[in-house]
């Protein structure tokens, strides 16, 4: 089966400024892809490119096996939930949800049936007559989800949808989005700067920085085997401890030595089975530290630079 979303060698420039460099990602039907990275890493721009809201400067993009590189947003068979929810302020909740169908000329009875179904699914029936201005943050969030759900798209796009909610509501909505994903078996692309959100929701994570992909993998892969220092430092809470160290070799193999200001260097007993430069960064996850044991149970070592 063709991947539901396939991005090949995507570039995005504003004038001479490169925002996205050589992006290659693909996801299968039912995947929950999370784009995560610090602000300004290009993750939202990438999402806008997928939606067709930003033209791309180079590369190819296909959704559901169809080339969508130059197709307008309305013909991409997508739905999107925005950070500010972007509800139409002068329309009632019901009109907000049915606006897309109305524009597309869907007949009245289908509109009503779908509205009823979505409203029931999200438990927003009592809100249908209200204006967005009369809703709380959480309610707006639900309406925005409803507007996306009612489209029944091939691909859902989420642009930091939970960042405007308070902490408690955020956890609730996270669970709900997760459940929604499982119930609908829908494909989703989700942008966030919150790595906990990324870890808990994703079936596949893309870590980005400076417009480039740093690593693609499952939560476990990213967590346990970060591809570089940036990923190691950015993902995981609390962050991994990163300690400068020396790699030394003897006849038995390579081992790691942590220098100390005063006293003998700490020599780690585990051998490393690959070649390392002499200057390395030794990463230790707090979870892997066992108070009973003198040495870490598990560790990741990254080559420096």
């Amino acid at each position, binding site marked *: 089966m063709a991947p539901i979303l396939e991005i090949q060698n995507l570039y995005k420039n504003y004038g001479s400024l490169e925002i996205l460099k050589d992006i290659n990602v693909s996801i299968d039907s039912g995947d929950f892809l999370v784009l995560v990275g610090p602000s300004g890493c290009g993750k939202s721009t990438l999402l806008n490119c997928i939606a067709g809201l930003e033209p791309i400067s180079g590369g190819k993009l296909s959704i559901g096996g169809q080339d969508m590189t130059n197709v307008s947003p309305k013909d991409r068979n997508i739905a999107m939930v*925005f950070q500010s929810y972007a509800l139409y302020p002068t329309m009632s909740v019901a009109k907000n949800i049915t606006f897309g169908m109305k524009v597309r000329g869907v007949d009245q009875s289908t509109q009503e049936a779908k509205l009823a179904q979505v409203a029931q699914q999200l438990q927003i029936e009592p809100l249908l007559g209200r204006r967005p201005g009369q809703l709380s943050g959480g309610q707006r969030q639900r309406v925005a989800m409803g507007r996306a759900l009612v489209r029944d798209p091939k691909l859902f796009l989420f642009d930091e949808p939970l960042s405007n909610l308070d902490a408690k509501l955020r956890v609730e909505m996270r669970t709900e989005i997760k459940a929604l994903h499982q119930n609908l078996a829908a494909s989703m692309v989700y942008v966030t700067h919150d790595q906990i959100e990324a870890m808990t929701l994703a079936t596949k994570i893309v870590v980005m920085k400076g417009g480039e992909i740093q690593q693609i993998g499952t939560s476990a892969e990213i967590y346990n085997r970060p591809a570089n220092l940036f990923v190691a430092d950015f993902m995981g809470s609390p962050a991994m401890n990163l300690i400068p160290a020396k790699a030394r070799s003897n006849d038995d193999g390579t081992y790691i030595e942590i220098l100390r200001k005063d006293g003998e260097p700490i020599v780690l007993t585990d051998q490393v089975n690959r070649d390392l430069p002499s200057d390395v960064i030794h990463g230790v996850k707090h979870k892997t530290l066992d108070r009973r044991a003198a040495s870490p149970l598990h560790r990741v070592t990254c080559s420096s630079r």
Partner: protein
Amino acid sequence: MADLVISPARGQSQAVRLLLRWSLYAALGFFVVIYLMPLFVMVTTSLKSLEEIRTGDLVALPREVTFDAWLTAWSGACTGIKCEGVQPYFWNSVLIAVPGVAISTLIGAINGYVVAQWRFRGANIIFALMLFGCFIPFQVVLLPMARVLGIMGIAGTIQGLIFVHVVYGLGFTTLFFRNYYVTIPVELTKAAKVDGAGFFRIFWSIFLPLSLPIIVVTVIWQFTQIWNDFLFGVSFSQAGTQPVTVALNNIVNSTTGVKEYNVDMAAAIIAAFPTLLVYVVAGKYFIRGLTAGSVKG
């Protein structure tokens, strides 16, 4: 809002406090009198007979109220050779202002919508160029405009004046709408695009319903500008197409016959009436337009 009141230092007596308060009101009242005086003089003079004006006091109330001057001003006063009062010119102004306001507001709304919500490369430069157009002294375009209106075949016509007012009103109407629409998150447009709506659908269904306040501000601003215009009116009109401001000036400065100050005043009030009415009815929006037109919004 700061709750700040000029008050004497602590320890001063109630009497001093009261005195200060009274002088404050006296000062404010003094300015009120100054500002109202010309309007008062205009109204009273227009209700007096010429005889009473010659013998009486500027600020005295009319001994005998007569509406003769109003009648003359409306339909009999001489603007040069013709003596039809300001009536035909009043309607000229209406014929110029109504389409002029409607067209420039509509175009400004679309322009503002494009500049604020459909940003493309160069849009800001275009906006800056248009904005600068608001500030030029119009003397610099009078000569070529007179020729171009001639070439277009609309020199000296009402259409010609509408055209001029639309062209030179665009900068401000675009500015008003742009500054209003720029406060609306671009995500709204994006959401509507994903929903399948196009350029006009988004404008019509989402932005226009949001725009009532700024439409009112723009309409009032443009109406005041066009109604009160004199420079374009006197430069680009001919005998039958002059706006009311030009007619008023002609009546006041006509050298034929006796000077009828009461008629001048009545004509001035008639010419001022529409904009004064707008100000009284929708002063809040008028002020908002003034401040938005001078400080950036």
